[in-house]
């Protein structure tokens, strides 16, 4: 397994350790949050080989791929985080690391053009505070600004 680009072959790790606990307790990566602990809320979202998965219902021993946590996407998510602040996309902030990690994966693919499809794509990330309009508009704004910055660089 690789964690945020660094090779990590956990030796002697207990089979009953969830990826979430491994990251938080043994790697000190506390950005990944636990809320429901049963796959329903998305707070614990990390990327494995670029695909968002829930670390609370994944055993650490079975992970072979590249794991990316919120800490690993700090630079990549800078614009998205700025737009979250700009658009009021969080309040208590507990769901936010999961939302950002999910958002990073979506921005890599390109957001679905249709707002309903975008809402479906983030439906695994529950936010009890904000409603989702702020999150959707932050994602849209981030995509636009990143595209603008890219075309600026190229011209």
């Amino acid at each position: 397994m690789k964690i945020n680009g660094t090779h990590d072959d956990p030796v002697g790790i207990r089979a009953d350790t969830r990826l979430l606990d491994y990251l938080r307790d043994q790697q000190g990566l506390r950005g990944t949050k636990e809320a429901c602990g049963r796959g329903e809320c998305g707070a614990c979202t990390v990327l494995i080989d670029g695909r968002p998965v829930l670390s609370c219902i994944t055993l650490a021993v079975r992970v072979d791929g590249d794991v990316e946590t919120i800490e690993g996407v700090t630079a990549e998510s800078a614009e998205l985080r700025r737009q979250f602040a700009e658009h009021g996309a969080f309040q208590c902030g507990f769901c936010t690391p999961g939302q950002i990690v999910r958002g990073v994966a979506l921005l890599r693919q390109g957001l679905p053009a249709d707002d309903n499809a975008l809402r479906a794509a983030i439906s695994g990330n529950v936010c009890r505070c904000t409603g989702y309009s702020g999150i959707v508009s932050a994602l849209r704004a981030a995509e636009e600004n990143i595209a603008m910055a890219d075309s600026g660089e190229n011209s």
Partner: protein
Amino acid sequence: MRPGAFRYLAATSLDEVLENLSELGDEVTLLAGGQSLIPLMNLRLARPEVLVDLNRVPGLAGIDLVDGELRIGAMVRAADVASDPIVTGSLPALARAAAFIGHPQIRNRTTIGGNISHADPSSELPGVLAAFEGSVTLKSLRGERRVGWDEFIVSTFTNSREADELVVDVRFPVRPGWSFAYDEVAPRHGDYPLAGICAGVQISDGIVRGMRLVAVGVSDRPVVLTGVAQFALGRELDAATIKELGKVGREEVSANDDAHASSEYRKWLVGTLINRILGNLVLEQR
């Protein structure tokens, strides 16, 4: 919210899985996507003694068309069932149903073998398997056997797998001349459906020659609505007939009452879904 202790075996070959199953029988719990099993373990509702992990076992992947059937390896993920060009090309209803499972994070892990084996009465895919009259392939050291959906899916969370057997693939017969569709109603996007319908029709010269209609979420296993199919045979699917078929379906199911919805509401949903799906299938045929 952490699982209890268990022995963990990361199997690396099919033989290794089958040998463990043969030796340890029902002490073994198979781990596929883990999207049902791990939540149950976190809540201590499941306490496996030995967990045999299928994720590194080669030979359980792959989607192909063989002998008029779509064969999907047990470890193929729901996200791939939803987007694979072979599935979307040959059985779009299956791809659509897979896209209704949970949300993207869940679909990236959920496997078709685990989903069918789990036999949740509200699950989409068992209903699609029933509509296509599909089957699963079970393998053990004793040999291999094909079991039709009707025999495999027994009731809530219960299938007819023997303790030494493994589901290696799931098969959907491709039915030329038929059109299938899946649709459902769920409280929120990504939730298990309150009711879902998979429908298939065979129409020639505007007349219904065959129909398969299966409801999920209304009983302890998928329900084949034979009364609706019978009523439709030989008729033209015009607006009045479709409306009537919705009524027949509503009367035919005896839906469950539970915390999520009343029996009456579920029956109403079945009727509405039948109207909606058949209406769309007719539009597509034009």
